[in-house]
């Protein structure tokens, strides 16, 4: 865990200054005076908050992905499986629908909170102690996700006007464009609280390596673990969606990048996955800024373009039994 954390922390330390300099206007650190007072403005009010937000969102997604894979004992699990991200997105879509975009993060967080409450309610009924609760709960999360997806699609087809429609569709492909320190102050505390909750569940996730029954025999309370997971993933993913929209694949991919550098126990993945997630989103967001396209490529689309082929490669590797 230490090695992996150091590797990704070092990478982040290299990426962050690069990201601050990169963009439509490249800032040359040697001749920063040439840019006049604008350089400081661009750096402090545009690029720094955007970079910090990329780090926060990526860290939340990475940690949540590592925890979800550990909890579901499956390397193909993704934080989206619980339905928290789609519900948060639905909340955000609702704010566009009602023309209340100024309160978008509040709507999105309310969506995430609703998903968490639903999950907690279902969890209370399914994890009664006997086995099989986990599969049932995962299916329940999937149902919440598909319900949120259906309602989002409904909102799109019945959008009140063309402007709201384009806003919704654009927003659903997550991005970090034009974000300010306000978004950072919303997302950072919630995300880091979520990661802290996931860390509290880390050792219990290790016990799950041997299956649900063995974990329970080792003193793990499955209900407590489930609540920690729902709250931890809810906070870290919900906050990310609230400020950046849907950014897929990070939670799925990152633990796979980290795993070979650790002892492969779920607890050893969470911190390095947070750092690696931060690196990935920061790098991708810097890349979409400098790509010579007519309009800036949406971050969510860019990550899906990277993520889908990676996922296929992963499936093929799994078939060969190399995971």
């Amino acid at each position, binding site marked *: 865990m230490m090695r992996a954390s150091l590797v990704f922390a070092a990478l982040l330390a290299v990426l962050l200054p690069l990201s601050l300099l990169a963009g439509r206007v490249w800032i040359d650190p040697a001749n920063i005076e040439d840019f006049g007072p604008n350089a400081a403005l661009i750096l402090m009010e545009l690029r720094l908050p955007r970079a910090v937000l990329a780090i926060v969102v990526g860290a939340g997604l990475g940690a949540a992905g590592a925890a979800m894979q550990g909890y579901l004992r499956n390397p193909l699990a993704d934080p989206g499986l619980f339905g928290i991200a789609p519900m948060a997105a639905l909340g955000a879509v609702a704010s566009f629908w009602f023309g209340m975009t100024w309160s978008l993060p509040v709507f999105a967080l309310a969506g995430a909170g609703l998903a968490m409450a639903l999950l907690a309610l279902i969890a209370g009924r399914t994890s009664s102690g006997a086995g099989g609760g986990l599969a049932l709960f995962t299916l329940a999360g999937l149902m919440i996700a598909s319900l949120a997806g259906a309602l989002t699609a409904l909102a799109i087809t019945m959008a009140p006007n063309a402007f709201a429609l384009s806003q919704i569709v654009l927003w659903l492909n997550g991005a970090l464009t034009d974000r300010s320190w306000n978004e950072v102050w919303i997302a950072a505390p919630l995300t880091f609280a979520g990661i802290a909750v996931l860390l509290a569940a880390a050792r219990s996730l290790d016990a799950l390596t041997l299956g649900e029954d063995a974990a329970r025999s*080792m003193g793990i309370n499955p209900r407590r673990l489930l609540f920690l997971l729902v709250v931890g993933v809810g906070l870290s993913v919900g906050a990310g969606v609230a400020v950046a929209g849907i950014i897929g694949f990070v939670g799925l991919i990152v633990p796979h990048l980290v795993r070979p550098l650790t002892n492969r126990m779920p607890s050893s993945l969470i911190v390095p996955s947070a750092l690696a997630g931060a690196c990935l989103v920061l790098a991708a967001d810097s890349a979409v800024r400098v790509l010579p396209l007519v309009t800036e490529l949406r971050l969510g689309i860019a990550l899906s373009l990277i993520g889908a082929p990676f996922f296929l490669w992963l499936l093929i590797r799994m078939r060969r039994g190399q995971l």
Partner: protein
Amino acid sequence: MTLAVNALTLNRGNAAVLRGVSADLEPGQITAIVGPNGAGKSSLLMALAGLLEPETGTVTLDGRNIADIPLRARARAIGYLPQGADIAWDVAVEALAALGRMPHGDARREPVDAAIAALDLDALRRRPVSQLSGGERARVLLARVLAGEPRWILADEPLAALDLAHQVNLAGHLKACADAGTGVVIVLHDLALAMNYADRVIVLDAGKLSADAPPDQALSSENIERVWGVKTRWATLLPEPEGMKADSKRNPGQQALVTFGPV
């Protein structure tokens, strides 16, 4: 220091899997739970580990209802080894065995090292579990339980799917644990293993206690015929191989079960 079930009735779904089972288990012994498929062996073991909630009746550890014992304290007292080797991540032998310390909340090396040494896994410490044979895997999983230094070891079919050498080896380890004062309760399918290694045998038949006695009584030919519906005789295989004495500790009897087909 006893683990006991009193008038235990257990349902899974709508089906009754155990009906009015009572037994006081003793530490320092190997108790084998045997019975036909679906007799409730695994369910009884899980109930003893506190993992299944009884419909009626109680499971007690040292006279205390197991449901009232805090989870961590229960986990320190009882090590449970489920059936089959289901390991989600490709972790190394050492890391897996170290999970046994979880109920204690410490990372003490000595019990983990002792468990690894006891199961002859020293050479494999850093090997990922995907590169282990079935027998090695079974030993690692048992090492995890031993690393927790439990007073009770409850193991579901720990010897199944092992080759002869590993069976004898692992059974020997369990015997050594029992000799050191640990209570060992194992579910077995192989009646000859139960006959030769157990100090006591509990026979379950369709969720009911059919026999609870020393192996030669519990596994008498009459009982086997009644419960399994197969005619059998126990044969004592002698003479011993040259230079090999029957080891009263490791392998107290050399009884073989000869079958004569269904009744």
